[in-house]
């Protein structure tokens, strides 16, 4: 009689065999062709593996075994993206220590991996929350700092007065605090940033060298970087003489500017509203606007609102005087924080002008039409065309006019051609406990001093030493043993930075750590990385298409410039996989 397919005993048997086998255990073998298969490492949550995980790891394991059978030297490692808010929240809610919670989840998930028949070289395991890894995350931060790629500056953050804490954008719901429902304000706080904008051009241009990436991912990255070439123009505030710089991709419409709009955060707002009769209203408008998250302010659904400032400025091309307003849709962090409004040729400006009864002046016409009367307009004419009512530029085409106006602005020193990026510097400090401490010390004499290499890691104190519900500051600030230290330079009493790093930093370089192995002497082994890199197949969810991949590319470029690695594009091919749905909704288990 035939045997039956007894999958349970059969699967257990082979899982036990693989535990001891040499399958997918590799070293650098120059005689063999290498194949680096990387699946995005998971966050070790208490929920264990969901079907999305099962999918991504099944694909990774299939490819690893396939190329192994093709005779390739296959590196297929695994690790844990282990810092983050859920562990901290579990600790707050259930009193379980984040490290214990995380490590228990890792054990559980490892077991689930084995039950799915996934095979990894665990000798290369990376766990970002353990000191042997975050030591090197801290070391990398210091390299950034020493090379002027990390800096500190005051930044507007979401602030809840009731909870006395900073909130992430995602924690602000309809302008209210997620925890207590009170109104969220904007507050200036000193924050750490990485200078990713130094790399805007390379991050954009090098997308062309990635034929193995899906086009939609490259498009998303390009849009996120958001390069636009345009012209800057300086408008001069009447009487005071202050310059307001605007950026436009349509300088050909500059003769049609009928007002200027400042972001509520623009430094001139305060000055120009000082003597305004509607000072109180302006203040209220600014406060209301700043409570709204930026991405909301930029969205199409948001109602565009404005309020006049009691001031005008001079159009540098026409010499005409136009009013200045504040608008909720202008973001200070983007461009120059001020925009010129051309209602005849921009739909948003058109609607705004109609709403607030501002003048409309036509300066572009379709080359086949003579229509130039604003009274008949039902909507803005946004196409390029032929310039009219534009002084010496009249009758030029839009493209010609843009060039000529840029040249004139440059020559007469009121602006010129420029490039603008949507990408902002990366805010990396978090007022959280469960993250890698930022390894700097504040000394009264020496200022901001990076911790010495031999003192790394700056150890995260155990959770019983800190107050996680610390109001108004980072939890690490409540641990005196942590805060009080000595200056690495002069030895005087000093204080430690109490913010931790964004966990995206931990995941921006882990793919260099796998080839390095668990080397206690260095973060990255240049030669070993050179053998294995770039990652041949990177498998993961499309939800990481922007931030994680952009940050990783940024890291690779910085590390190449610092001569720590040889390649500046880490991932040769991306396999971005879809979701697993149950009755149309994302499936959890």
């Amino acid at each position, binding site marked *: 009689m*035939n045997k039956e*397919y007894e999958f349970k005993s059969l699967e257990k048997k082979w899982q036990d065999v693989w535990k001891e086998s040499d399958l997918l255990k590799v070293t650098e073998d120059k005689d063999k062709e290498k194949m680096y298969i990387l699946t995005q490492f998971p966050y070790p949550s208490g929920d264990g593996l969901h079907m999305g995980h099962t999918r991504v790891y099944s694909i990774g*394991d299939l*490819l690893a075994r396939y190329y192994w059978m093709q005779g390739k030297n296959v590196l297929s490692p695994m690790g844990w993206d282990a810092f983050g808010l859920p562990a901290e929240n579990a600790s707050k809610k259930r009193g379980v220590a984040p490290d214990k919670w995380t490590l228990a989840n890792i054990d559980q998930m490892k077991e689930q991996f084995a039950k799915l028949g996934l095979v990894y070289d665990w000798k290369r395991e990376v766990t970002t929350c353990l000191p042997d890894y975050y030591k090197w995350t801290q070391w990398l931060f210091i390299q950034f700092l020493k090379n002027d790629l990390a800096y500190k500056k005051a930044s507007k953050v979401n602030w809840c007065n009731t909870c006395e804490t900073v909130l992430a954008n995602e924690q602000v719901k309809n302008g209210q605090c997620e925890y207590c429902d009170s109104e969220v304000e904007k507050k200036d706080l000193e924050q750490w940033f990485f200078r990713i904008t130094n790399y805007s051009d390379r991050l954009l241009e090098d997308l062309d060298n990635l034929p193995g990436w899906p086009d939609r991912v490259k498009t998303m990255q390009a849009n996120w970087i958001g390069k636009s070439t345009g012209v800057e123009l300086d408008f001069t505030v009447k009487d005071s003489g202050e310059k307001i710089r605007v950026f436009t991709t349509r300088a050909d419409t500059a003769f049609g500017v009928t007002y200027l709009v400042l972001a509520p955060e623009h430094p001139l707002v305060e000055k120009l509203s000082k003597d305004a009769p509607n000072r109180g209203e302006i203040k209220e408008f600014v406060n209301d606007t700043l409570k709204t998250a930026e991405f909301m302010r930029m969205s199409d659904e948001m109602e565009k609102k404005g309020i006049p400032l009691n001031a005008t400025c001079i159009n540098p091309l026409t010499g005409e005087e136009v009013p200045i307003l504040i608008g909720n849709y202008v973001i200070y962090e983007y461009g120059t924080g001020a925009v010129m409004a051309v209602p005849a040729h921009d739909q948003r400006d058109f609607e705004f002008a109609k709403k607030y009864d501002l003048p409309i002046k036509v300066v572009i016409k379709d080359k086949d039409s003579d229509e130039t009367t604003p009274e008949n307009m039902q909507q803005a004419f946004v196409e390029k065309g032929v310039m009219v009512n534009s002084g010496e530029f009249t009758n030029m085409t839009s493209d010609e006019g843009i060039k000529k106006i840029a040249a004139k602005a440059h020559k007469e020193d009121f602006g010129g051609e420029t490039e603008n990026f949507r990408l902002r510097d990366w805010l990396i400090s978090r007022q959280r406990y469960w993250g890698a401490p930022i390894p700097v010390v504040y000394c009264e004499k020496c200022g901001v001093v990076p911790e010495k290499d031999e003192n790394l890691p700056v150890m995260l104190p155990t959770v019983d030493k800190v107050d996680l519900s610390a109001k108004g500051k980072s939890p690490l600030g409540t641990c005196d043993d942590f805060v009080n230290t000595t200056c690495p330079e002069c030895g005087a009493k000093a204080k430690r930075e109490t913010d931790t790093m964004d966990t995206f930093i931990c995941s921006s370089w882990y793919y260099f750590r796998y080839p390095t192995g668990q080397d206690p002497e260095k973060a990255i082994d240049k030669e070993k990385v050179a053998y294995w890199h770039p990652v041949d197949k990177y498998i993961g969810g499309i939800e990481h298409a922007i931030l994680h991949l952009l940050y990783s590319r940024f890291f690779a470029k910085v590390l190449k410039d610092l001569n720590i690695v040889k390649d500046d594009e880490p991932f040769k091919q991306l*396999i*971005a996989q879809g979701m697993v749905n149950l009755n149309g909704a994302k499936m959890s288990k």
Partner: protein
Amino acid sequence: MIEKYGADTTRLFILFAAPPEKDIEWSDDAVAGCFKFLRRVYLIFERALKFYKKDASVVAFEDMSSNAKDVYRKLHQTIKKATDDVGERHQFNTAVSSFMEFFNMFNPYLTEIEKNGSDGEAEFVISESLRDTIKMLAPFCPHIGEELYSNLGLGKSVFDAKWPEYKKEYCVEDSIEIPIMINGKIRDRINIAPDEIEDKVKEMALSSDKTKKYSEGKTIRKVIFVKGKLVNIVVS
């Protein structure tokens, strides 16, 4: 899921349901279908093992009976498809379909052999089929892959084995041989598909080494193609 059907079924479902970039809609029926397929493969192997010979002697493709040829051709087509789908295009779902198609053809062949008895040809075709299909299935469903491979006496792990290779000439559907004539004399023969288009056949005829040899220094006046019969090249 894993508890009910096992890891191999779970993996197979997820790899078979859609290409990687597309969303998958969970379906209990589809999962049960994957389990059924793996069980079927398992039971087919059990039956086929008695005809399996580790060192079955090679039977030339040309000499095979038409049933054996069909199975053997399908095997090579499946290897070609799976190699492209997994290694080049990363479209795992269509590779799984080709495995299913293969077993749909292999099963009646096996039944036939069980009924009428085995011979050297059957031993060769069955042995090759078992060895190569399990190597291909193994990266998808590694447990059953190891288990079934271990019965073939070829080594302790299927992952020590090499991924199978296909021969292009075995993948082509039945071909016919036609003569190439130069000025009415047969100089060469080529294999073409019965429905091969005229231009392609003429091109093949002209690029043959023998044609080149016999037309060297001469001008080709005319190429005549008689469908299914011959190519005649007129030179002077």
